[in-house]
C-alpha cells in the first residue's frame, strides 16, 4: 500500500507544555506514519492531544522529544532549503473560519500574495488568473464574484474554501485540517469533506483531519485510517470501517457505543460499554499504568494500573494500546490463524450494514 517510505512520520514524539500548575504532556510518545495520498483522521475528546499532534505534524510546534521526519529527513535538524521545502509542503486549515482569514485583505490579495512571493506568478495579471483557477478548484464559482470580497462578506463555508485555496497556492503535499468543518453549518459539511477528499484524489495530497466528531471521521475516513487519542496517546489506530465495526480498545468501544446517532431506532438500541467513572483525569495528575484504567470496565488490577501499554500491532493494519485487547486479539489470531485479520478491510461496501 505504500510506495517507498512514508511521506511524513512522527517518531516517538512527546510535547510538553508549562502551565502555572505544572508541566503537562499534551502529546505523549506518539508515532504516526502518513503515506502519500493518504487520508487519516485523528479523533478524540477535548484535551486528548489531537490538535497538538496536528500542529506537531505541521511543524508549528517543536517536539519536546522524538522526531518529525519528512521524506526521511529530520525536520527540526534540517536547515535552509530542506526546512523551507517542508514548511511549504505541509499546510494547515484552521477550525474557525472567522479567524483564519485576515479581515482587511480581499480574497484576491490572500491568494495572490503567496503566488507572487513564491514566483508562481510573475505579474499581477498572472496571479489573478491563478487565483481564479484556484477558486474554481475549491468550488467558488464564478471566481470573479469572490476575488474582491472581504472575509466578512463570505459565509463560513465559503471562508473555509478560501482557506483551502490559500493552502493550495504553495502546492502542499499534506494538508492538516484541524476541525475544519466543525464550525460550519451541518448542511454543508459534507461538501467541504468531499472537497478535501477530491484534492487527495486529484493531486495526491495527504490529508490529516482532526475532529471530535466520529460521524465526520467515519465519512471522511471511509478509505483511510482513524487514530483514536486519549490523554495524549494514540490508543487505537485502524482502518476506519474496522474501527467502527469492531473497536479493539475499550475507550474506542465506549465512544462508538456512546455517540448519539441521527437515527432514532439505531441510537436507542445501541450496545453500550458503561464506564466505571465519568471523570476524565487531569493531564497534571495522570494515573499510573494505562491512563484509561480508572474508567475502564475491563481493567485488570496489577497489570493495567502498573504498566503503560504500548501501541501494539494486532494483525492487519490495526494497532491498539491495551494489554487486555492485545492479549485477546493475538490469542484469537493464534487460534484461528491469520485469516481473520487478512480480510480485505478496504472493501467498505461489503462490511457496510454489518454493525448496529
Amino acid at each position, binding site marked *: 500500500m505504500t510506495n517507498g517510505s512514508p511521506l511524513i512520520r512522527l517518531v516517538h514524539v512527546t510535547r510538553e507544555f508549562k502551565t502555572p500548575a505544572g508541566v503537562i504532556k499534551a502529546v505523549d510518545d506518539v508515532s504516526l506514519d502518513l503515506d502519500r495520498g493518504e487520508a487519516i483522521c485523528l479523533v478524540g475528546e477535548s484535551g486528548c492531544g489531537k490538535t497538538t499532534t496536528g500542529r506537531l505534524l505541521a511543524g508549528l510546534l517543536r517536539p519536546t522529544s522524538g522526531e518529525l521526519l519528512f521524506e526521511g529527513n529530520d525536520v527540526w535538524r534540517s536547515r535552509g532549503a530542506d526546512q523551507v521545502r517542508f514548511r511549504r509542503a505541509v*499546510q*494547515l486549515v484552521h477550525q474557525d473560519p472567522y479567524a483564519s482569514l485576515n*479581515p*482587511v485583505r480581499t480574497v484576491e490579495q490572500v491568494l495572490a500574495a*503567496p503566488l507572487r512571493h513564491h514566483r508562481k506568478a510573475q505579474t499581477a495579471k498572472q496571479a489573478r488568473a491563478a487565483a481564479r483557477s484556484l477558486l474554481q478548484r475549491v468550488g467558488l464559482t464564478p471566481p470573479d464574484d469572490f476575488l474582491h470580497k*472581504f472575509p466578512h462578506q463570505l459565509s463560513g463555508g465559503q471562508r473555509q474554501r478560501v482557506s483551502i485555496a490559500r493552502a493550495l497556492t504553495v502546492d502542499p503535499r499534506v494538508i492538516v485540517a484541524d476541525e475544519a468543518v466543525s464550525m460550519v453549518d451541518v448542511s454543508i459539511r459534507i461538501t467541504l469533506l468531499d472537497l478535501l477528499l477530491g484534492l487527495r484524489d486529484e493531486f495526491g495530497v495527504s490529508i490529516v483531519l482532526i475532529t471530535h466528531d466520529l460521524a465526520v471521521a467515519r465519512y471522511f475516513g471511509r478509505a483511510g485510517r482513524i487514530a483514536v487519542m486519549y490523554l495524549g496517546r494514540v490508543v487505537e489506530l485502524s482502518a476506519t470501517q474496522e474501527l467502527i465495526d469492531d473497536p479493539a480498545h475499550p475507550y474506542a468501544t465506549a465512544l462508538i457505543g456512546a455517540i448519539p446517532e441521527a437515527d432514532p431506532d439505531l441510537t436507542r438500541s445501541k450496545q453500550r460499554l458503561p464506564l466505571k467513572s465519568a471523570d476524565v483525569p487531569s493531564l497534571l495528575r495522570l494515573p499510573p499504568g494505562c491512563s484509561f484504567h480508572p474508567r475502564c470496565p475491563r481493567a485488570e488490577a496489577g497489570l493495567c494500573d502498573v504498566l503503560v501499554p504500548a501501541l501494539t500491532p494486532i494483525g492487519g493494519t490495526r494497532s491498539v494500546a491495551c494489554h487486555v485487547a492485545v492479549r485477546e486479539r493475538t490469542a484469537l489470531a493464534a487460534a484461528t490463524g491469520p485469516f481473520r485479520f487478512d480480510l480485505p478491510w478496504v472493501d467498505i461496501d461489503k462490511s457496510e450494514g454489518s454493525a448496529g
Partner: protein
Amino acid sequence: MIETLRLLSRRPVALIGLGGVIFFVLLAYVAPLVVSLQDAPDVTSVYLSPSLAHPLGTDYQGRDVLNQIVHGGADILTVAFLAAFISTAIAVTFGSLSATLGGRFDAATLGLTDIVLTIPQLIVLIVVAAIVHPSSFLVMAVILALLQWASLLRQVRAQVLSLKERDYVEAARSLDLGIFHIIFREMLPNMTSYIVIHFILAMTQAIYAQVGLIILGLVPLSGENWAIMLYFARDQGALYFRDSLWYILSPILAIVLFQLSLVSLASGLEDIFNPRLRAA
C-alpha cells in the same frame, strides 16, 4: 477616497473635524503666501478693538492680530506633526519588533518604556528645554516625541502580540511569506485605525506641550506663532485692557479650535478603517 468621504459623512462630527483641520492647514500654510507679514510696530494704534481694518484688533505694538494669527500657525502645526510622526514611528517600529523578537530586546524595550512612563513628563520637559534651548522646529519636535512614544509602544506591542497568534498570521508563516509580509501586510493594516488615531491625539498633546513651554518662557522666543502671541499678550498686560480682549482670545481660540478639529476627526476614523463598513 469617495468611499472614505461617504463613511466619514455618516459621522457629522468627524466631517466637521475634517473641515476644521483642512481650514487650519490652509490658514497656516497657504494664507501666509497671500497675505504678507506686517511686523512693523505702529505706536499710534496700540490695542485697538476690532474694526474693518483690523478684524481682530491690534496688539501692544499696534500690529494687526489677524495677520499674526495667519502667520503664527505654521510653526505650531509643523512641530505637532513632526513630534507625532517621530513618536508614532518609534512606537510602531520598536513596539512591533519588541513583540516579534521577544527575549532580551523585549525586556529592554519594556524596561525603558516603564521608566519613560513613570517619570513626570512636564518636569522633564522643562528641564530638558532649559538645557537644550530648542530653537528649531526639529529639536523641539524631537524633544516632544521622545516623551510621547511610550504609551503607544506598549499598545502596539500588545496588539502585535495578540495578532501574532491569529490563525491568519500562522497561515502566512506556513506559506513562508516572510517577516515583512507578516508585519506590513497582515498585522499593520489591522492596526491602522489605531495608529492614525494615536497619531492625531499625539499631535494634540504636542501642541499643548509646546504652547506650555513657550508660555512658561522656556523656549527662545523668535518668529511668529500662536503661543508666542499668548506669551506677549500675557506679558504685556493685555488682560488689563478691555479693548485687547481679541488679542488674547484669538490665539487661544485658534489653538482650541484646531485641537477640537483634530479630536473630532479622530472620532470618525474608526469607521474608515473598518473593512466591514466599506461598500460590498
